[in-house]
């Protein structure tokens, strides 16, 4: 009778399926004692389940020998780049990763004055002729390695491998701002929250080249078509014969987010400057503002090098 049962159980039946978890528990040593005799009785009769148990015992050791998948060689660099950008984009949440500590410390004092002056200088030019909407950025602006591209989707960087590295970042990288840099990504500028952006400004003379891009990317429906070629290709020329940076670039140079917080006191001083400048505009008329932003660079407060030479759009 017993032989017949063994002979019948060479192939696993549907009833054997319910023993599988029990057999796996037996292998792991967590099968309750009250079920052991029950399982043992079945094993004594079922050859297929005995075979299953034998294989189940070997399974963990064999699975451990499966080689681990190997990531691509540049994955670590991609991760570091993404972490850097994330740290730049949200400095309150993420520690700012600085390569070379104290790099900004020396520039902090000079940046304090520069930040205050250049932040409020455009406001003094409200009565000029051309409209300028992107003098000030509220978003962090980053500098990327030369081999990276600025994607067509605003705020996305594309590494040489074609991978976008800004899925989590609030940073907006603009083609006009992103440029080749020998150093790793650095924070260029940071506006403290709550600080109002500059209202549309009218200036005479040249228009900063970043103004149209900013309006397009703000709406989000017509993303700016960024150059698909390597940033370095178009921007290497900038390095060899560097064009004058925009006001936004100049004003943010050397300031990181923490320094910008420290500049809050300087903003108060800037408010006073604005007050007196407004009075000056009222007295002297609109020509003062025009003169101050490039119509006559020699007499302006802003050096001519800070105004883009080819930035006069045809639409204007």
């Amino acid at each position: 009778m017993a032989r017949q049962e063994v002979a019948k159980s060479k192939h696993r039946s549907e009833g054997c399926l319910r023993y599988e978890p029990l057999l796996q528990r037996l292998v792991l040593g967590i099968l309750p004692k009250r079920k052991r005799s029950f399982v043992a009785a079945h094993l004594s009769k079922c050859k297929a389940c005995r075979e299953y148990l034998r294989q189940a015992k070997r399974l963990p050791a064999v699975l451990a020998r499966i080689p681990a998948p190997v990531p691509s060689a540049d994955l670590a660099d991609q991760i570091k780049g993404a972490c850097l950008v994330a740290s730049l984009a949200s400095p309150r949440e993420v520690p700012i990763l600085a390569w070379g500590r104290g790099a900004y410390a020396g520039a902090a004092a000079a940046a304090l004055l520069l930040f205050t002056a250049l932040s409020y200088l455009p406001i003094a030019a409200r009565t000029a002729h051309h409209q300028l909407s992107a003098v000030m950025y509220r978003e962090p602006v980053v500098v990327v390695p030369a081999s990276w591209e600025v994607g067509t989707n605003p705020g996305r960087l594309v590494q040489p491998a074609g991978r976008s590295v800004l899925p989590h970042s609030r940073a907006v990288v603009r083609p006009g701002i992103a440029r080749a840099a020998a150093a790793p990504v650095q924070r260029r500028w940071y506006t403290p929250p709550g600080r109002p952006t500059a209202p549309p400004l009218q200036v005479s003379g040249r228009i900063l080249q970043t103004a149209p891009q900013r309006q397009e990317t703000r709406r989000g429906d017509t993303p700016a078509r960024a150059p698909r070629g390597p940033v370095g290709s178009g921007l290497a020329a900038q390095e060899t014969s560097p064009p004058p940076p925009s006001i936004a670039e100049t004003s943010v140079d050397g300031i990181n987010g923490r320094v910008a917080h420290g500049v809050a006191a300087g903003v108060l001083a800037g408010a006073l400057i604005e007050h007196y400048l407004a009075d000056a505009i009222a007295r002297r008329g609109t020509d003062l503002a025009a003169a101050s932003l490039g119509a006559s660079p020699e007499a302006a407060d802003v050096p001519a090098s800070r105004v883009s030479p080819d930035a006069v759009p045809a639409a204007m």
Partner: protein
Amino acid sequence: MAREDQLLSKARNLVGSDALEQVETEGADDVDRVLVEAAKLGDGEAYSQLVDQYHARVYGIIYRMCGAAEAEDITQDVFVRALRALRSFQFQGQASFRTWLYRIAVNAAINELRKRGRRSQVVGSSLEELQEAESGIAERLAPDTSQSPEVLLERKELQHAVHAALSKLTPKHRAVITLVDLEGLPYEEAARILGCPTGTVKSRLARARAAFARVFQRYQQGKMRIQI
């Protein structure tokens, strides 16, 4: 051990010997502790070392749970999340940075699988195409020290087959098999990563192995087509 010494020396250079002496060094966890504390202070080199040290294993976990298609993106996501949460991370008790990071990775993988709304379909060669003999799982998975091209090819196919079979399991079952059987973590650490008691890990592992064996057997018999 040499790698730990190397990391330790790097960490010493990063944070200075004074701070390092305050840490009772016994192994990689203490090196991690120094690197984490340095990264909290904004030291990019420290966090870079943590990335170098763990990105391959995090990638392995996510690859096995979610498949190859998005493994690198999710791995990148994991490290960005870890960086965001780094300030809140505290070394308490037996908690280690590795465990904490793996927990983020497993949670990210499970969230990704849930987001897909279905069990991931791993794309590629089918089990039918492997044309395996009727030998059992253990025979097929038996270790072989031979390095002949045929054996290497079979191992590659076997690796795909295992990952394909894993893709048919539930996210929790994938996670426990990945951590315990494939990554070789002890039950206790797997329990901390999964956020459940050790006994739960074992019972879940038993069910997961049973499900895996069942799927793999069907795979062998050519009844199921799994694309890699």
